[in-house]
């Protein structure tokens, strides 16, 4: 618990420092003025969501090959964090879009593919809540998680493949020097925050699963059947 508290305090400090430094020090951009500062939360939120969905992909593959329930629970934790961060990305994009494009939303390829990504992983979470059998839930969720991740490169490449209102991907290669370090710092802060959130969700899911297994074991013992030793997660 102490280690977790220290990690949490470190994440908070990094998050505050990165945002305050980027907002306070970066100059107003020639075209967008101070609206550019939204980039420091919008872009890192999108990158950290991609990172989270990458974890879903890796953990789901690992679950299908090795069948360790902890990998399924890690995928579930990462999917939930990814959905929150994708929702935040879409909302921040709207706040940026209204003053720059004049609309809150448009069916642009980048926006649409991001919305599809959000719906796929919201569906992934809904699927998990519908299926009761842990084995079946794990297999089905892993399939959706792996297929859902295939949309991430489509979202990333959408601004190159199609004519789009959205500007090219913001990265140190496409952003001017005064803004690069702020973007990098906030990207690191968001990814570290995503790791922290995934870790806590994973710890919770493991405990909840163990409690479920304990209840099953109790029910079996109560019915005069020898318990099988529970679930190892």
């Amino acid at each position: 618990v102490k280690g977790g508290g220290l990690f949490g305090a470190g994440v908070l400090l990094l998050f505050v420092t990165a945002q305050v430094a980027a907002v306070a020090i970066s100059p107003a951009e020639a075209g967008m003025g101070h609206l550019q500062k939204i980039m420091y939360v919008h872009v890192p939120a999108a990158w950290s969501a991609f990172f989270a969905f990458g974890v879903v992909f890796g953990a789901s593959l690992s679950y299908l090959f090795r069948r360790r329930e902890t990998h399924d629970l890690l995928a579930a934790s990462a999917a939930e964090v990814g959905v929150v961060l994708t929702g935040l990305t879409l909302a921040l994009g709207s706040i940026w879009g209204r003053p720059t494009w004049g609309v809150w939303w448009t069916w642009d390829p980048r926006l649409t593919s991001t919305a599809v990504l959000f719906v796929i992983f919201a569906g992934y979470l809904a699927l998990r809540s519908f299926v009761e059998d842990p084995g079946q839930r794990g297999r089905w969720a892993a399939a959706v998680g792996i297929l859902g991740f295939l949309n991430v490169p489509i979202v990333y490449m959408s601004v190159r493949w199609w004519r789009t209102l959205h500007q090219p991907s913001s990265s140190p290669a496409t952003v001017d020097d005064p803004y690069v370090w702020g973007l990098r710092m906030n990207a690191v802060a968001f990814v570290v925050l995503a790791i922290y959130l995934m870790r806590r969700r994973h710890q919770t899911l493991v405990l909840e699963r163990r409690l479920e297994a304990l209840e099953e074991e109790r029910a079996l013992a109560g019915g005069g059947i020898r318990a099988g030793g529970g679930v190892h997660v």
Partner: protein
Amino acid sequence: MSDWPWVIAAYSLTWVLLGIYTLRIGRRLARARAEWNREAILPGAEASGRTGSERRTDATSNEAEA
């Protein structure tokens, strides 16, 4: 119109959404830990160094032998 209200709205949304989510999962983890401590570690299990689950498995084995 000034840019700042949009910037403030974006950062406020970020903090409110991530703040609520972080607190929510923190509470859920605390609840799961408390429940685990209450349910899985029966009184006396700490002293024997075994969890309630292990003690129950022993009990069912003894019942089966009897």
